């Protein structure tokens, strides 16, 4: 939640020469009333500083407005910017007195609209449209009508934008009749002004029917726009195509073809915009080309790399077959930022198959030796994941993980042990891996993993009672220094061991551990001791670490590359209009049947096939678990009864 914070804006300027202490205020008043332009400019500089510090400028506004008719261009411009910034402040919008001050400013600015100098005219138009004075809108539209046919295209472009501004800022007073004729006039203009006019219509009405007429013209103009306008044009065309096209439409293909040429431009934003269109109407060859182009941007040095990698990550999930050939371009470089490295690793792990396994595995192993702990954690985790995916290579991975275990830092060791624990649960021969974990149990600093190792040991107790006994003896030596979760596990282990092996030395060991637990500082341990000492068999709660399912369904719905996709939530502005099934022109009625994509089908089949053996395994596992459950059920009931009784006793005690 947002909360009030001391306003730091402008604080960097300190209380130095530009501050507004009372003595300085006099100086400011002196300067702003001076005859000389330099002094006034200096005064305005000071006012900018005050504005930065969130000070109220109402006092000075009338003087600034008086300065507007002056000939000096710089002064005029500075005053205009200051007025529009003043108008943008929330106070100016709500307070009547401040709003009245702004009305005073309109007369000189209206006069500037008729100036011959384009620059003055442009600035006047910008300032007027950002004043947010509702009473002025009819007058402003009249003034705009006068300059809509200005010789200068820059002014005409600005006219379109000022309509949007006024519509957004004073929406109650602006009616479609006010601006329709202006927009219609602008639509007949050059390519850039036309684009702005269409954009304004779309922003105001949310509809793009107007593009029926200008669709082909806009596609033709695409190559003439600069990068920012081109992005806007593509955004409009994307919205239009979503609204009015079905896959395979003849006119749609024209747009897709035009986009293909644009993929050669060096701007990631354009590729992002095109990718939206391509992914909306996926075609195998085009997606392939798109991925190729996106990969090319991996060398980009700017923050855009993050977006490029996010896109590739999504591609790796939905179209891994096309991205696989480019996996070499994803090798991690040392100078890259951490988030790039992590994303690259994720993508690589998604692309892994039998052909590139060696290289990607090598990359993962290399990164697992890095000195960045986060990177190591991810690399080791992915290593164990890929090993589960490709059981063929398990020996190699385990060997490499062992190497890392020998040389790695303590953090690394924790991660390796964690991945071993993961592996143990998937393997049939669990003992060798368990032995490795036991060997290193002293070095594990993360309590979660330590507890897990003991838990795993407990599960194998029937097979290796003597080893368990020996490990338990070692653990008992450092019992008091352990974390309560670890103590908890040790206690359970000791209890279970005693249950199956009732030799004297085991009984003594158990007694020793129980005594330690009895006087332990942790409530949890003491509680467990009490339960165990009443020789009620304890049911442990199985909490398996849930695997992260990479993208949620919500995430997949969001278009790749959009800001909403990057931040993982639906942002306003993304509201896609629903498909309109009406046919917009006779020409577009011709339907071209696109053959269904074979690759995707086969992928689905593969997935289904993969799911079958999985489900069999799962059944076996569930059977085992159920068997165990049955045995433990009785005990559980006993425990429940015990606690219910306890509850009753306590209730009685307190009610009394």
């Amino acid at each position, binding site marked *: 939640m*947002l909360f*009030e*914070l001391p*306003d*730091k*804006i*402008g604080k*960097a300027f300190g209380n130095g020469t530009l501050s507004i202490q009372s003595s300085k205020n006099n100086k400011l008043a002196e300067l702003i009333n001076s005859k000389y332009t330099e002094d006034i*400019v200096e005064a305005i500089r000071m006012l900018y500083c005050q504005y*930065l510090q*969130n000070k109220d400028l109402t006092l000075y506004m009338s003087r600034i407005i008086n300065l507007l008719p002056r000939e000096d261009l*710089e002064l005029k*411009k*500075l005053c205009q*910017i200051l007025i529009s910034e003043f108008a*943008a402040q*929330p106070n100016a919008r709500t307070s009547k007195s401040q709003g009245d001050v702004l009305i005073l400013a309109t007369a000189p600015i209206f006069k500037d609209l008729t100036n011959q100098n*384009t620059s003055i005219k442009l600035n006047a138009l*910008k300032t007027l449209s950002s004043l947010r004075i509702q009473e002025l809108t009819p007058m402003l539209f009249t003034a705009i009508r006068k300059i809509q046919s200005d010789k200068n*295209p*820059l002014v005409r*472009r*600005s006219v379109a*934008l000022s309509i949007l501004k006024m519509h*957004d800022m004073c929406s109650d007073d602006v009616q479609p009749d006010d601006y329709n004729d202006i927009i219609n006039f602008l639509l007949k203009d050059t390519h850039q002004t036309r684009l702005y006019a269409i954009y304004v219509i779309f922003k105001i009405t949310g509809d793009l029917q107007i593009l029926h007429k200008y669709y082909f013209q806009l596609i033709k103009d695409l190559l003439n726009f*600069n*990068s920012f306008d081109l*992005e806007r044009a593509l*955004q409009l065309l994307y919205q239009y195509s979503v609204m009015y096209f079905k896959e395979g439409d003849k006119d749609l293909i024209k747009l897709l073809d035009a986009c*293909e040429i644009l993929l050669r*431009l*060096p701007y*990631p*934003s354009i590729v*992002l915009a095109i990718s939206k269109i391509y992914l909306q109407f996926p075609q195998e060859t085009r997606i392939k080309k798109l991925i*190729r182009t996106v990969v*090319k941007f991996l*060398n980009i040095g700017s*923050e*855009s790399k*993050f*977006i490029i990698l996010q896109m590739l990550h999504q591609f790796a999930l939905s179209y891994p077959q096309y991205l696989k050939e480019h996996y*070499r*371009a994803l*090798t991690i*470089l*040392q100078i890259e930022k951490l*988030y790039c490295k992590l994303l690259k690793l994720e993508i690589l792990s998604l692309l892994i198959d039998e052909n590139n396994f060696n290289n990607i595995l090598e990359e993962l192993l*290399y990164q697992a*030796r890095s*000195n960045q702990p986060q990177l190591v954690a991810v690399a080791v985790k992915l290593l164990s994941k890929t090993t589960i995916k490709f059981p063929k290579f398990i020996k190699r991975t385990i060997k490499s993980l062992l190497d890392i275990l020998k040389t790695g*830092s303590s953090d690394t060791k924790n991660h390796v042990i964690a991945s071993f624990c993961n592996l143990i649960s998937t393997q049939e021969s669990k003992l060798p891996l368990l032995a490795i974990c036991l060997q290193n149990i002293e070095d594990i600093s993360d309590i979660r993993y330590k507890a897990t190792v003991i838990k795993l040991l407990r599960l194998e107790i029937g097979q290796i009672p003597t080893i368990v006994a020996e490990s338990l003896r070692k653990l008992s030596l450092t019992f008091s220094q352990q974390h309560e979760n670890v103590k908890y596990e040790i206690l359970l282990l000791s209890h279970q061991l005693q249950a199956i092996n009732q030799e004297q030395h085991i009984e003594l060991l158990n007694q020793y551990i129980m005594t330690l637990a009895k006087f332990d500082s942790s409530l949890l341990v003491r509680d467990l001791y009490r339960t165990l000492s009443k020789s009620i068999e304890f049911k442990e709660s199985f909490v398996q670490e849930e695997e992260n399912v990479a993208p949620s369904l919500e995430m997949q719905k969001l278009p790749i590359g*959009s*800001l909403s996709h*990057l*931040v993982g939530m639906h*942002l*306003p*502005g*993304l509201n896609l209009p629903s498909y309109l099934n009406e046919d917009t022109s006779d020409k577009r009625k011709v339907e071209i049947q696109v053959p269904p994509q074979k690759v995707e089908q086969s992928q689905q089949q593969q997935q289904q096939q993969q799911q079958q053996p999985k489900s069999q395994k799962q059944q076996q596992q569930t059977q085992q678990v159920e068997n165990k459950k049955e045995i433990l059920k009785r005990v559980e009931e006993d425990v429940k009864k015990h606690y219910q009784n306890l509850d009753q006793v306590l209730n009685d005690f307190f009610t009394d």
Partner: protein
Amino acid sequence: MISSLSFINQKGEILIYRVYKDDISRNEITQFCAKMIATKENKEFPIINIDQTSFIHISIKDIIILATTKTDVNVAMVLEFLYQLSKICKSYFQGNLDENCIKKSFVLIYEILDEVLDYGIPQIADPNLLQKFIQEGGVQQETTINIEKLRQLTFTLTGVVSWRPIGLYYEKNELYLDIIESVNLLISAKDTVLRAEVVGSIELKSKLTGMPECQIGMNDKLLMGKQQKQTKQTIGISIDDMKFHPCVRLPKFDKDRTITFIPPDGHCQLISYRISENINIPFKVNVFYSEIIDNKLEIRLKIKSIYDNNIYGTNVLVKVPVPKNTVNAITATALGKARYEVEEQSVIWRIKKFQGDFETSLRCEINLGTTNKDQVWSKPPLKMEFQIPMFTASGLRVRFLKVMEKAGYKTNKWIRYLTKGGEYLHRL
């Protein structure tokens, strides 16, 4: 659409704050600064979303330029715009953009912000054109008063050839073309090539009169293939990915792969390309690390240049990483100089001139200090930097460069080739 723009310093104090839309409050920006920038939390991520407001930022030296938005925008476009804005500011401050510059001329930045964005939509974003509108010390009087000149300017801005003004004149017409390639190579510890690519660019500097149309021909495989029947020339190279400056006529290139364009005045990057097949790797490196005794390490390094012996590599630098606890290093080499540099934590071997088809070696004996054995040396990769003039790792050559103008003047053309070491890494 961008809702607001701010320039922020390292402490999280806001130097410039300009709001374009009403959907953002000062408080949100202040909160972002206090939370994210001052505490350096999550600073690495360029996009942060707090309470439906997206903060998109880039860092340039000690300055953070932040754009905020509440709607779904094309983030790459916003980032591009921010970089362009920093470029514009730099062009006003002689290539610098730091806190002092901003504090000194913040009013000028306000003026720039007023021109580059209108209601959050990028307007004029070309530093050269913008400099004609606003000059340091305020709006340029001369240009703005001269209405005819201004009209030309604005027509340039909104016209089809927005990158080149009308009516340019040079006494000497010159055209410089630099083909600069950087080789990115990553070799694993087992000597397998993990990644090998050439990232190249054709830089253009034009001083030409009028509106000339230029054409470049390269030994592009696809183009050569078409002409081969007629000229029987050798097969060219395959350039897989090319990106062009907007001045290049893309439909024409798509049709017949000829590169025609009206060049922008001054310097620009005309083409950038990436080649990942059949690369001439200029150097072959072999490294052997061996531990002689506990505290002594021996490194043997062999480098062989694999280019014609009439070409010379210059400023060759090899960074051989050594463990943190290195006390000193004894080096022996026949070519260049090698010494241990503490700040870099590596032995740096510098060779001023490296002839083609030549092999040389380096032997280092590293004395290590005693250290805690728990800290294992992470072995960063060996890095190499070099420059080889008149050589292209991709084999790219410009076959012709034509300049066509109505006036029919003579143009002096210069073409240079240079190959640099980009990310030339050898893992240990």
